[in-house]
Every structure is written in structure tokens, then in C-alpha cells.
């Protein structure tokens, strides 16, 4: 179970940038005195076996939220609990529990697929025997044995994506965080990722999945959290999210929530 409670992240501008911003007309309510509140108040939770879709326009604070969840960034305020344990106080625990994949993450080009995945397995402290077992299991699951010895710079996009997935889950994480994992992928490569996420539904793992593609949310997600201007504006089931709009589709609901915010702003 993951619980995100009133999460906030503020970045301080350097002196030069702060000075330049003083001269500009600021319309973003997240702008503060020499600081930017990238995330102001985000809360949601995900139960094991569930997939949560994290939605929001560009710059809403989704990636910052996911980076805090994965411990890459330290929250300014709020709590992140995995099975009741506050990961901001024990980031090492979080790194062992979380598997992270984004559309931007890459592989080491001059290493083979197996070397790439092995490297991250060892970085996560897996012993040789356990690592070999995990490699075999994941490579079989993702049908990767045929190109395991290929160098990463020789892979097709689909192969690359499968290798990235293998790398993200090699340490058998309890929580999977996907930050726009299908961005820039062709239909077949995207399907590989979506099928993989689908395979985790109903298991003891929680999946958080940030995307701009609402059809993916419809297909995969049990719950939805919409973030806009650094705040979570909606958290509930996918059905509840659809019901926000009169037409009952995700697209209209999304626009309705984001539009409301724009009008208020």
C-alpha cells in the first residue's frame, strides 16, 4: 500500500533567475518570492494489485511527484508511506521497494542487454544466484533470451523498451512507477509496455502510471489522480473520474477539471 499525504516540493531560484522573474508578469500561482512551488499539495494512495493513472497537463507536477516517490527528490513537506513506512526518513527502503521507468530512461549503449540488467540487479544488492534466477524469469516473461547478448546500441526500439522494463523490475520491487513510459514509442513498442503493466494487475504489486494517453488509462487503471498546478484535483476510481463529465468519458472529465482550474486562476 502506498500513501502520499499532502506532498509538496519547492525549488529556490538562483539569484539571477529570481531577479529576472521580478521583472516579468507572473500568472502562475505557484510562483513565490524567489521560489517555485512545483508541487503544492498532492495526496493519493494505491493498494496492492491496483494500477493508478496519474494525469495532468504538462508542467502540472507529475514528474516531480514521481521523483519524490522514487526518492530522487526530497519533499519539502508531506509524507510518502510504503506499507506504513515513511520513505522520506528511510530512502534506502524505498529504493528497494520501487522500480522506476520513464520514456526518457535509457540503457548503457556499450553494454549488452544482459550486462545492463545485471548491473542494476547488482546495484540493488542481489546475490549471484538470486540474480541469475531473476534474469531467467524476466527474460522468459519478456521474451528477451534471443537478444540478451546484443549490445544496447544494436537494439530495436521494442527490444530497448523490454530491456528497460527488465532493468526496472530486476530487484523484484513492490511498487512500479512508470513516468510516461509510452511517450515517443510506436504502437508495437507501446503495447509491450502496456501489456507488461496489465500483467501486474491483481498481483501484490502497486503500479503508478503517469500518462497523457487517456485510452491507456481507460484500458489499465483502476484509479485516477489528476494533478494540476501542483495540486491533486481529483482522486478516485476510473469510473468516478468518467462520471465527472456529462458525456461520461475520460477526455471530457479531464478537460472539465482542468478548465475549472483555469477559470479559477
Amino acid at each position, binding site marked *: 500500500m502506498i500513501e502520499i499525504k499532502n506532498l509538496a516540493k519547492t525549488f529556490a531560484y538562483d539569484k539571477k533567475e529570481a531577479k529576472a522573474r521580478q521583472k516579468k508578469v507572473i500568472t502562475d500561482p505557484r510562483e513565490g518570492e524567489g521560489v517555485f512551488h512545483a508541487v503544492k499539495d498532492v495526496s493519493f494512495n494505491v493498494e496492492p494489485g491496483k494500477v493508478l493513472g496519474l494525469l495532468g497537463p504538462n508542467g502540472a507536477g507529475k514528474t516531480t511527484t514521481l521523483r519524490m516517490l522514487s526518492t530522487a527528490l*526530497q519533499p519539502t513537506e508531506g509524507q510518502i508511506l510504503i506499507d506504513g513506512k515513511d520513505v522520506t526518513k528511510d530512502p534506502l527502503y524505498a529504493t528497494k521497494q520501487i522500480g522506476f521507468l520513464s520514456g526518457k530512461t535509457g540503457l*548503457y*549503449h556499450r553494454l549488452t542487454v544482459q550486462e545492463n540488467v545485471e*548491473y542494476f540487479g547488482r546495484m540493488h544488492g542481489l546475490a549471484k544466484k538470486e540474480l541469475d534466477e531473476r534474469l531467467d524469469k524476466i527474460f522468459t516473461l519478456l521474451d528477451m533470451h534471443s537478444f540478451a547478448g546484443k549490445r544496447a546500441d544494436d537494439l530495436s526500439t521494442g527490444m530497448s523498451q523490454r530491456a528497460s522494463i527488465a532493468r526496472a523490475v530486476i530487484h523484484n520491487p513492490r511498487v512500479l512507477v512508470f513516468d510516461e513510459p509510452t511517450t515517443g514509442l510506436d504502437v508495437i513498442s507501446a503495447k509491450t509496455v502496456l501489456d507488461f503493466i496489465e500483467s501486474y494487475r491483481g498481483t501484490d504489486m502497486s503500479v503508478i502510471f503517469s500518462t497523457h494517453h487517456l485510452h491507456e488509462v481507460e484500458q489499465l487503471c483502476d484509479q485516477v489522480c489528476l494533478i494540476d498546478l501542483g495540486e491533486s484535483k481529483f482522486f478516485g476510481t476510473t469510473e468516478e473520474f468518467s462520471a465527472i463529465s456529462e458525456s461520461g468519458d475520460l477526455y471530457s472529465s479531464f478537460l472539465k477539471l482542468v478548465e475549472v482550474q483555469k477559470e479559477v486562476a
Partner: protein
Amino acid sequence: MWLVYKKEMMELLRDKRTLILSILLPTVIFPIIFFFVGKFSGDRAQEARVQEIKIAFVNSEEMPGLRDLFTSEKNFKKVNIESNNYKELVLSKDVDFILEVPEGSLAPADSRVQQTVNLHYKGASQLSNILSTRVKKIFENYNNVQRNKLGDAFNIPNASLKAFNKPLEVENKNYASKRERTGEIAGAMIAYILILLAIAGAMYPTLEVGVGEKERGTLETLLLTPMNKSRIVLAKFAVIFSASFSSVAFTLLSYLFWAYIFTNALNLDAIGFLANVSTLDILLIGVLLIPLTSIFASIMLSASIYAKNMKEAQAYMSPIMMLGFVPVLVAFVPGMELNWKTAMIPVTNVALAMKDLIKGTVDYSLIAVLLASTALIAGALLYFVTQFFKKEKVLFRS
């Protein structure tokens, strides 16, 4: 940490560019190029020393002694010219030199006054300078003969004539060994090359393990592993250090190898002085490079981590390289030597110490001071880079 180090080294060694730039180029290709260029220019100079010189005489019967000196000299060929357009004759290479004696001139010993002759030639290149030096030597011989004759004519004793021609004769008693004399220039040169290689050798791996990780999108994934950030950055530092130091160490060893080949197998004495540098001094040169390489590895790694992309990182590298070159150039300044003050100047101190080690004039107590001051700076910079790598603003700069 060892795991990150091993992975980074594996990647670097699989990159042909790194291998060629860091190892093959300075250790094999450069020495071979230097050898062939040196041999080629040496051969050309030798050719010029024995090359046949075509010389024409105008009114040479006025000074037959002068003409005879030329014609009796080996490899001087007298040619006849029809035209009096001397410039055209020289430029068309029909003749190398034209010696024009003005009509009615007499040998100085006969006329007892100074005489003037014209020498027409084209002397733009270094090779033509060698040729004109040969010609000037004959004039000098002629002048000596004429001087002695004039001395006889004016009844000047031989000793007075000598004093008159050269009031002060200096006999050089230079006690500097050949190693010291050659090392003064070559030592600074070698220090310059080694320090330059230390910086250049660090550059490519730095870009690769720093901003390269950001661009590939692997940095974020790496940060999400349980590995401590300090250990990650220390492993990266160690990779840069290894690449840079091994590049210099291989070069140093290759110099010694080529020095042996050139002096013993090919009988070229030009870099033979290197054979006199003791094993201890060579080891000390290597030791000096450890803190120096660490300094540049830390500075470059900080810049590479800070940069948003490869282009920005490369823009930082040029000033850093300048930061390395300028203090090294100070070691070339005449009179600059290693002392208690200069031992505290980073980079310059290493260049000066290397020069002294190659010359064989080093004060070993100063080496200890230098090592302590450089190691202190290297340590401080390494600490800085580990702290820098922990900053969110640096890692996720956008």
C-alpha cells in the same frame, strides 16, 4: 563503488575512440610521427650540407683568390651566365648564387682598403640558409687570408693582428651536464606534454560518465538504486582518474621505450639524455601526476555533472583546459624554478618539478612540499565534487 567503476571502465574500453585517443595516439602514433618528421627534416638538412651549389662569377678575374676558394671547395659548381638579369637567373634556379665583383676592384690586401662585392641569391627557407652559411664560410676564409696579408703589408705583428680582430676571446667552461642543458628545454616540453595529456585524457571519460549519463537517461535510474551517491561519484572520479593517469603513464613509458629505440637501435642522440633519468625520478614524475590528475578529474567531473547537455559540458571544458595550460606555460618562463614559493602554485609546481627531475637538479624536499600542497587541493576538490553530486539543483538542473 567497485561495481560502478568496473561497469564504467568496461564501457570506456569498449569505445574505440577512447582507446585511440588515450593510449594508441600518445604512446605509439605520436612518437612514430615525431620520429619520421625529425628524421625527414634531419635528412633534408644533411642533404643541404652536401648539396651541389651552382655559383656564377661576374668579373671574378678582379679577385682570383676569392673565386679559387669557391671553385676548390667540394660540391661547388661554377656555372656560366649569359644574361645580366641576376634576379631572374636566381629565381629561375639556373644558378644558386651569383658573386658579382665590381669592375676595377682589387683584393683588399692589394688595394689596402675595404672592398665590396655583391652576392645574389634567394634565401627564404631554412634549407637555403644552410646553403648560404656554406657560402659565408668561404667568405670568412677569404677574409682571414686577406687579414693576414694586410697585417704583413702594414707590419703588424701576428699577436696584435689577433687582438685587433678579436679583442676578447671567450673560452666556455660550462659545467652543466648535457642532461641539464637538454633537460632545461626538453624537461619543460615533456612536462607540458604530460600535463596536457593528463587533461586531455580526462576529458572524454568525464563527458561520458557525467553529462553522458544525463543525456542517455541513465543517471536518474542510477540514483534510484540503494548505492550511496558519494560512492557513485567516487567511482566515476576513479574512472576518470584511471583513464587520465593511465594515458599519461603509458605515454611516459612509451617515451622511455622510444628513447631506448632511438638512441640504441637507430643511433639518434637527440633524446638520449632521457636514458640518464633515474628510475626514482621517473617514479616521482608518475607520483606527481597523481594529485595533479585528481585535481583536473574533480574539476571536470563537477562541470560535466552540472551541465544540462553535452554541448554545455564541452563549452566548460575549454576554459578548464586553459586553466591547465597557462600555469604550465609559466614553467617555461626563463628564471622560473622550483622553490618554497613556487612549490605552492598548483600545476606550475608540478611542471617545474618535472622539469627539474628530467634535468637531474631537483630538490627532493621541495617535492614533498609540492605533493602535500597539491594533495590538499586535490582532496578538497574531491570533497567538493561529492557534495556537488548530492545537490538536486545540479542533478535535475533544467
